[in-house]
């Protein structure tokens, strides 16, 4: 990789400083006059040729660019898009928030949103959302994550879902039905073992990000939800990852690991290449980011099914980015115009769905583009499934996503180490959450 220890240290320093700036901001409360979207501007806001700025993180560049281009073409207002590397996005926003330089609109990884709404970085758009004709069908997970003290601040920008992918060619060779993916955790285990039994050089049953907290959150949490259990309490301060369903999930992966059905690289996988083996056709079945369907289909004949729980069920991690108007925006009415357009059929179907991105509205799951590919339909439908969630907690990052987080320790112990430490590892997550 291109980062040297030196730049990494430098980055960490900047991050630290920016967090300090952010903390200082929080301490002051939202004392500044946050902009309000005026109610007389109508449900669509103002389209008067204002230049708006929009920030987002690099992984969602493609989708953001599509949206911005389509908006600029059809509106007087013009949006300027700024992309920031994923690892540095929090730093950038923190620095800008401290000096009052936030752009008009900015998107945020949905798991960070609660932290930022609490810090007062977004403008309140509760009333405007209520005016939208589509209000009832907007993805609930994202809306909930953007709600703080009963006020709504954030709309879904781009959804990023997790689903189960399998390699149809390997399934055929293993004598499995290539059109039928796993519907329970036990079937997942069986099918992975069946592919492993092919005993081909470099081909494995499954793979996962064994040292990547975010990957674990993204792919294993839905297994717990689909089983009807929760990973945290409502407030996001207590970990429930020692429950029965969670234990089943760990057991499944431990069994697969002991049977040698997990790629050896999984053990130290920090996230940069956790899907590479599947993309090269060397993995049978694994939970996977749905956004990569098109790219992966170029090299592998992919089957798609929702992530199952212990006894069936279907769930997904509703990730991706939420978007809101910043506290520093000087043109909140014009910014709202972009947001209201974003929720329209035009943006959701003609821009997002046309490019195989899941629409953020449940009533659009079955659109003209999804009908062409049943796999896309599967993905769209699971986004609105009852057991699909966007988990949120103020300290989500430290507890789960950070390198060496207590969650990483927990699942590494469960799969590779001493499985007897579950309770105390779970306790450590609770501790991190409630700090």
């Amino acid at each position, binding site marked *: *990789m*291109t980062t040297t220890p030196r*730049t990494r*240290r*430098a*980055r960490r*320093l*900047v991050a630290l*400083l*920016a967090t300090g*700036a952010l903390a200082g901001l929080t301490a002051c409360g939202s004392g500044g006059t946050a902009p309000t979207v005026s109610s007389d501007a109508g449900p669509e806001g103002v389209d008067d040729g204002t230049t708006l*700025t929009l*920030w987002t*993180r*690099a*992984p*969602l*560049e493609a989708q953001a*660019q599509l949206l911005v281009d389509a908006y600029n073409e059809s509106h007087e207002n013009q949006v*300027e*898009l*700024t*992309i*920031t*590397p*994923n690892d*540095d996005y929090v*730093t*950038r926003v923190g*620095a*800008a928030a*401290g*000096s009052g*330089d936030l*752009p008009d609109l900015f998107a945020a990884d949905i798991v960070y949103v609660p932290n930022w709404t609490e810090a007062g970085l977004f403008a309140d758009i509760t009333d405007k959302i209520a005016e939208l004709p589509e209000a009832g069908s907007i993805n609930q997970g994202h809306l909930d994550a953007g709600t703080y003290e009963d006020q709504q601040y954030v709309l879904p920008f781009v959804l*990023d879902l997790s689903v189960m992918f399998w390699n149809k060619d390997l399934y055929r060779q293993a004598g499995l039905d290539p059109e039928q993916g796993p519907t329970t955790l036990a079937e997942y285990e069986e099918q992975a073992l069946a592919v492993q039994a092919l005993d081909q050089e470099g081909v494995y049953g499954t793979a996962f990000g064994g040292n*990547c907290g*975010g*990957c674990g959150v*993204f792919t294993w949490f839905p297994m717990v939800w689909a089983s009807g259990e929760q990973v945290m309490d409502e407030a996001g301060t207590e970990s429930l990852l020692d429950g029965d369903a969670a234990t089943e999930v760990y057991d499944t992966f431990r069994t697969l690991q002991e049977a040698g059905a997990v790629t050896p690289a999984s053990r130290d996988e*920090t*996230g*940069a*290449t*956790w*899907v*590479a083996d599947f*993309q*090269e*056709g060397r993995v049978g079945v694994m939970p996977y*980011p749905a*956004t*990569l369907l098109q*790219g*992966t289909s*170029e*090299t*592998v004949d992919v089957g798609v099914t929702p992530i199952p729980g212990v006894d069936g069920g279907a769930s997904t991690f509703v*990730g991706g980015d939420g978007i809101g108007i910043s506290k520093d925006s000087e043109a909140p009415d014009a910014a709202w115009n972009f947001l209201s357009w974003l929720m329209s059929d035009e943006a959701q179907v003609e821009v997002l769905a046309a490019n195989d991105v899941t629409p953020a509205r449940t009533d659009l799951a079955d659109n003209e583009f999804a009908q062409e590919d049943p796999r896309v339909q599967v993905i769209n439908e699971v986004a609105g499934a009852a057991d699909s969630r966007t988990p949120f907690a103020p300290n989500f990052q430290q507890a789960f996503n950070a390198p060496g987080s207590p969650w990483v320790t927990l699942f590494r112990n469960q799969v590779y180490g001493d499985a007897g430490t579950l309770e105390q590892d779970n306790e450590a997550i609770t501790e991190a959450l409630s700090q």
Partner: protein
Amino acid sequence: MSAPAPARPAPPPSSRRPDAVPSRGRGGPSPWSRTPTYVLTGGLVIIFLFPLIWAGVASVSPQAGTAQSEGWGLGNYETLVGYQAGVGRYLLNSTVVSGLVVVLTLGVSLLGGYAFARFSFPGKDLLFLLVLAILMVPYATLLIPLYVLLAQLGLQNSLVGLALVLTMFQLPFATFMMRISFEAIPAELEESALVDGCSTFGALRRVLVPAVKPGLVTVGLFAFLAAWNDFITPLVLITDSNLMPLPLAVANMRQQVMGIVDYGATQAGVTVLALPCVLLFLALQRHYVRGFMSGALKG
């Protein structure tokens, strides 16, 4: 109080160099005795060049999950060209910033180094210490205050502001290097120029600048490489996508959802980034090495 002038005249820069390393080229010992040298240097060359060559090869080779999923070709470069404002724009930004940094660094360090080496003025040592003190602070910690400061000057989010900040971080080394370079030149050289009627600036321009050329090349190349490759400073200071230098654009481009990295696009970006540095280094390496020697010989 200039530094004690060397009693013996410094050797002319080029004439003695070939003798410094005993030449074994023509008519030397048998080829066999040279073999260990070739094996050693060849091995070193492979070790140093391998990553670069590998990046170049990987950027055009097929790899699942990149723009070049089947067969060899330039798919990853197409990604690079089509990304946001396009690679041309980012290369231009990088060139403008690096060029400005080189010019500013050379200008300031030339005059600064000359002053520190040849003139005595009150507070000289303190001032030199102050310049070096920039090195004492980890530069990342200065970026947030600088960001606020630049915003007040109206220079935030501009290539000129970025170049000014990068220049500042180059100054300690550059001034130090130029001071040494000037001190390595015998004072008599300058004195005779003054006797012949040159002003101090005239002496600098006509006599001293040619003499410190190796030092200038070293400083310039260092400034260029640092500015060209810097990531963290533009990351904090530049917010407009159209003003990003290339390293920042490449860092953005390689990231996909869920922390997955597009290695094909990364390799293509690294190759494009490395090429100008390699070419410049090859073109200037003779002066570059001499620049370091001039400092070393001074002792």
